[in-house]
């Protein structure tokens, strides 16, 4: 076993690429980071090797990583990113061979969900890989050119074209027919590993929108960088920019997340006082605890959780309170509130179908996923849902009709509002005194509890809290303006 330098970067290439794809980046990072590019089965020097599923590819890479020790980062480009995400999942799950993973660099990554590649493009790519050498040579070059934003230097283009032609056609087809379609969304779950996500502004299928909708939901500490003018082949198109961004990110301290809603001191004193029942005090403290940024959804999948977070950011614009995660946790218990609209399926199914419908509506109206739409556009879609006018045909991904979307959005608003007002910071914002009506009594049928001596209008008791102004926490808008 050889010793790894502390900043080793293992690199996994795109479909048709090879370890050589990373040579320009390695040169750009020379002296700062040790770059170890690896060939995936069926590509580059590993073209004779089999095992084309995402897991099989990950196995090969895991073996290479295990051969060295020490902390490391993992970069994956397109197809390689999906492999990197599975490796990160294995590392976080405690695979000893993968210990030491300190960061992910995902470049134009193929997401854990089935890749959004149009059928015609897929068929086209499958059509020539087994053709005669002349056709292959022509199409391989066309493929490379179609995947860049501007144009590559001729030596890079020649190298990339040559790599495509070197690839085992079986591996190429296996990715297009199976690997890209593997649904690893729940399996990858939500990763804690810090991640830098790159997208080329000119990338047709895996640009910034796709990364925001399908990759970032898996990354508790993910940061999206869009590179203008770049297509799908960033490591070849702008290796220097990629290197700079990686080094910047490594040097920069992690962005702080929104703190959980703070309890104003006066209200915290009330909670701590003997006016508050002990069981209630514990519950309030529990509800005030920070949400786990890497919360792994149980009822929804991570992509759906991201859509729900976007919905709740509009419905309940309060920073630092992950209402979506709390709703998901409730959905996962299967415990509801005792009824549901007959028109809707079971709560968890209704949420999933509604969120997918909302996303489909965003794509139908704006050709963009819901999570990246500007707030006013998100609001417009939610308003249509509220009015019972959000219609998305099933052919475009609609799963609930307009009436059902209206029922679901009513349920979702209520779920959010109920969770909000169970939070002590929200109660403080109201100046709600009810928590102080009780206290503890040793008697089974309580005696001597304080309650309220005054119940008339305009007769606050001295201990009753005033509404906390302007509010105990920043709204999301204030938080993002910071």
């Amino acid at each position, binding site marked *: 076993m050889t010793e790894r330098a502390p900043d080793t970067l293992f690199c996994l290439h795109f479909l048709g690429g090879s370890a050589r794809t990373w040579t320009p980046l390695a040169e750009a990072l020379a002296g700062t980071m040790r770059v170890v590019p690896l060939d995936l089965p069926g590509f580059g020097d590993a073209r004779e090797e089999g095992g084309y599923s995402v897991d099989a590819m990950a196995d090969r890479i895991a073996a290479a990583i295990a051969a060295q020790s020490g902390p490391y980062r993992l970069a994956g480009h397109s197809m390689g990113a999906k492999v990197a995400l599975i490796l990160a999942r294995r590392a976080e799950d405690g695979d000893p061979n993968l210990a030491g993973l300190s960061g992910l660099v995902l470049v134009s990554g193929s997401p854990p969900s089935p890749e959004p590649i149009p059928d015609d493009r897929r068929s086209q790519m499958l059509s020539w890989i087994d053709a005669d050498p002349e056709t292959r040579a022509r199409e391989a070059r066309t493929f490379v050119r179609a995947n860049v934003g501007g144009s590559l230097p001729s030596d890079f283009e020649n190298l990339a074209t040559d790599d495509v032609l070197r690839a085992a056609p079986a591996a190429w087809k296996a990715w297009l027919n199976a690997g890209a379609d593997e649904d690893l969304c729940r399996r990858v779950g939500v990763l804690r590993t810090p991640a830098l996500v790159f997208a080329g502004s000119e990338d047709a299928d895996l640009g910034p929108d796709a990364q925001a909708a399908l990759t970032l939901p898996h990354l508790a500490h993910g940061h999206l960088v869009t590179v203008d003018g770049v297509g799908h082949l960033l490591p070849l198109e702008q290796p220097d920019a990629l290197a700079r961004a990686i080094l910047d990110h490594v040097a920069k301290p992690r962005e702080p997340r929104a703190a959980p809603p703070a309890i104003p001191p006066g209200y915290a004193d009330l909670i701590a006082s003997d006016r508050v029942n002990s069981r209630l005090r514990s519950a309030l403290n529990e509800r005030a605890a920070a949400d786990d940024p890497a919360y792994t959804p149980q009822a929804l999948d991570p992509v759906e959780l991201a859509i729900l977070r976007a919905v709740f950011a509009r419905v309940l614009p309060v920073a630092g309170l992950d209402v979506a995660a709390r709703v998901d946790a409730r959905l996962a218990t299967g415990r509801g509130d005792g009824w549901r609209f007959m028109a809707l399926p079971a709560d968890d199914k209704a949420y999933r179908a509604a969120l997918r419908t909302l996303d489909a509506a965003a794509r139908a109206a704006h050709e963009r996923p819901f999570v990246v739409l500007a707030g006013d556009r998100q609001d417009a879609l939610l308003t249509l849902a509220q009015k019972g006018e959000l219609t998305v045909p099933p052919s475009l991904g609609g799963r609930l009709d307009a009436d059902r979307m209206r029922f679901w959005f009513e349920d979702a608003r209520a779920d959010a509002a109920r969770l909000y007002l169970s939070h002590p910071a929200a109660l403080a914002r109201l100046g709600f005194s*009810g928590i102080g009506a009780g206290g503890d009594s040793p008697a089974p049928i309580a005696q001597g509890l304080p309650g309220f001596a005054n119940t008339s209008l305009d007769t606050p008791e001295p201990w009753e809290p005033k509404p906390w102004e302007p509010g105990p926490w920043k709204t999301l808008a204030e938080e993002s303006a910071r």
Partner: protein
Amino acid sequence: MNLDTMRIHSEDETVDAVVIGTGAGGAPVLAILAAAGLKVVALEAGPNFTPETFAFDETLADEIYWTEERLSGGSTPEAFGGNNSGTGVGGSMLHWGAFVPRADARDLRLHTESGEGVDWPISHDALRPFYERVEAFLGVSGPRSYPWDAERRYPLPPVRRNGPAELMAGACKAQGIRWADAPAAVVSRDFKSEGGPMRQGCINCGFCHQGCRTGAKASMDVTYLPLAVSHGAEIRPESFAHGFERDRDGRIAAVLYTKDGRERRQRCRAVFLCAGAVETPRLLLHTGLANGSGQVGRNYMGHVATQVWGTFDHEVRMNRGYPSSLITEDFIRPKDADFAGGYLIQSLGVVPVTFANAVARGRGLWGQPLLDYLGRYNHLAGIGINGETLPCDANVLTLSDETDARGMRKARIDFGYSTNENRLNVHATKVMRDLWEAAGATDIWVLERVAHTLGTCRMGHDGDMAVVDPHGRSFEIDNLWISDGSTFPSSLAANPALTIMALALRTAERFLALGR
């Protein structure tokens, strides 16, 4: 409640009666039968809570609501769970509002009066003594004189008025409408029901719907159930009844139930089904019993329970005090009505989560407007009605094709307003808006709402048209009795619990009078 020293009956022993459900319908029956020396066992689906668990919080109170899923359809889908259905020893009475108007005599003769709805098969005169007994036993607080019933007297002085009540009183005065302190089954001073614990006067905490920590509210677990247990009744918590065993004559010989994951069987001479207007018909439909009339599940009713909300300059702090401390019955028969029956109006204080739920659903607010509006909580107050709903063919409880975790089909409830309810609602909404304007409210809005669960096993004189006779006894199975809101032939304008308890006493005493 404390069940440590209660008498335990063997499952092999044939007890005189099994009572299914321990709420307003079951608890009084259990007490009356036990006091008469009968061997009685109550099966309660929910756990046995002690008041120590009631913690002045809405979310923690979820455990006392019946949260097994029901499917709500129809044009006015009704919310269940915390809105009207409870679980635990004491049933829905653990979270009831304790607002106890008596039914108006005219409501029991609605068909004779208006040609609409149905008449009850019992007279108000027959019911009155039972009302009086329940009020005296529970310790109902109310006004010294009741404007709409000169002879009525309440055992305890009224509970304190709160902010919304003061606002409503002022508005009623301005509009020439009579009002009174609400009759409330909440003791305004220290009180002890026969056989029950000493309960201190209400501390005005405002959490009636979350379980009363002090016992001031007359839940069954501090009133009829302790009396029952003191006379030898047994209460089995977490016992879900799901079937019956019948003898050769078709009479019920045993109740089948699940407890601690085990199937059990209690032999008995009679059964009182007191599971409420959803679970009672569900169990009968599930077992296929007592439905020769085809009426089981039919004529489901929820009350028209529309509310009007407004913002006041006053610091209202509506969470303080008994939530519904003022009433007017001036609209039980409005002079200008274009509908049959009428409604009562009550003042409303609501705790935050319940209120936020209503605002998000009913007012449809979200985003910053939602946060801003909820932020005015301490300046908000409401009024609401409880209004007559006529029985209607379209409103029906059936079994869904979906099953619960036990494999039992879920209840499906189709409910919608018809012309009469819609007209009543329009009338009431205008009256309430006018009142709130007179009270000085701004930003007035209307919350459409349906409350309570009634009907589905109606009582009547004719076994072809009704499930039970006027005393609650099944026409088909003579040792099966029903005592809960399911037997109501029409909804009445009054909130139902007091009437359910009064009928329960009457049913139990009839059973005793017949010599079992």
